[in-house]
C-alpha cells in the first residue's frame, strides 16, 4: 500500500517537472531539455547519497543492468521530448496510458509478477476507451510546436 501511495505522490511531483520540461522544450534544443534536469538530479541525488550513505553493490549484475538502463533512458528521453514538442501536453500524455499494460506484460513474462490477469484485460479495454474519447474530443484542436 505504501508503494502505491508513493507511486501516486511520484506522479504528482513528476507532472510539475513535466510542466517545466514542456516550457523549456518550447525555447531550447531537445538535448538541453534533457541535460538540465539530469544535471540538477545528479547534484540532488549525490547529496542525498553522501548524507545517507552508499549501499552495498553486487557489481557484475549491477553493471550489466546499468548499461542497458542508460541506453534505454537515452532513447526514452529523446522520444519524450519529441512527443512533447509534437502537440499539447494534455493531448499527448494520455497516450501513455498504454504504459501500465505494457509494464504488466513485461513484468509477467520476464519477472513472473502476476497481477490479476482479468483486471489487466479490463484496464486495457477501459484505457483504450478513455484514450479514444480524449483524442476524439480534442482532435480538432491539435497544435504543433516547432522542433
Amino acid at each position: 500500500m505504501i508503494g502505491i501511495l508513493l507511486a501516486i505522490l511520484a506522479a504528482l511531483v513528476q507532472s510539475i517537472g513535466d510542466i517545466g520540461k514542456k516550457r523549456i522544450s518550447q525555447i531550447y534544443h531537445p538535448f538541453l531539455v534533457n541535460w538540465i534536469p539530469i544535471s540538477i538530479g545528479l547534484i540532488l541525488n549525490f547529496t542525498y547519497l553522501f548524507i545517507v550513505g552508499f549501499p552495498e553493490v553486487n557489481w557484475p549484475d549491477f553493471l550489466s543492468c546499468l548499461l542497458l538502463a542508460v541506453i534505454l533512458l537515452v532513447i526514452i528521453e529523446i522520444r519524450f521530448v519529441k512527443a512533447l514538442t509534437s502537440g499539447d501536453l494534455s493531448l499527448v500524455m494520455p497516450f501513455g496510458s498504454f504504459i501500465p499494460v505494457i509494464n504488466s506484460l513485461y513484468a509477467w513474462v520476464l519477472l513472473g509478477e502476476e497481477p490479476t490477469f482479468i483486471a489487466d484485460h479490463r484496464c486495457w479495454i477501459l484505457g483504450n476507451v478513455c484514450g479514444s474519447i480524449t483524442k476524439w474530443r480534442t482532435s480538432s484542436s491539435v497544435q504543433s510546436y516547432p522542433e
Partner: protein
Amino acid sequence: MFADLSRSGGLLAPFRAILSEPGPRHMLILALWNGLFTLIMKIGSSHSSAIFFFTMVILGEFIFFSFMLWKNKLNPLTPFRENPGICLQAGLFWTLGLSLFFVSLSMTLVAYASAANRTHVLFVVILSHFLLREGDIRKRLLGCILMLLGIALILVPVG
C-alpha cells in the same frame, strides 16, 4: 454522447491518429521502451538500492548528453542564466518524482506501481490548464477519469 462523429472522423479516429500524428506515435513507442526500462530499474535496484541505481543511470545519461551538447556546440549554461526558475522546476521535480517512483517499484509489484503512477496524466491535464493555459480541460479530464477507472481495476484486488 461525447463526440460529434462527423467532425472527428469516426470511432477509429484515435487509432488512426497514432499513425498520422507524431505526438501520439512518439508516446506509444515511448511506452514500449518505458516498460522495458522500468523492469531493468527494478532488477538493477535489487543489486544495490533504488536511489543509487537511478543516480548511476542518470550519471551515464549525463555523460551522453554532455557529449551531444559539446558536439552540437550548445552552451549548457545558457538556460540557467536566462530561465533559472523553470530549469530548477524541471530538474528538481523530475528528479524527485522519478526517485520516488523507483523507490515505490522496490516496494510493490511493477504492475501496481506503474498503474498508480499513471495518475500522472490527471495531474498533467489539470496543471497544464492552469500553468500552461491549455484549453479543453473538461473534455480531457473526462478521458483521464475513465483512465483512472482502469487503473483502479488493476490496483483493486479481484475475487
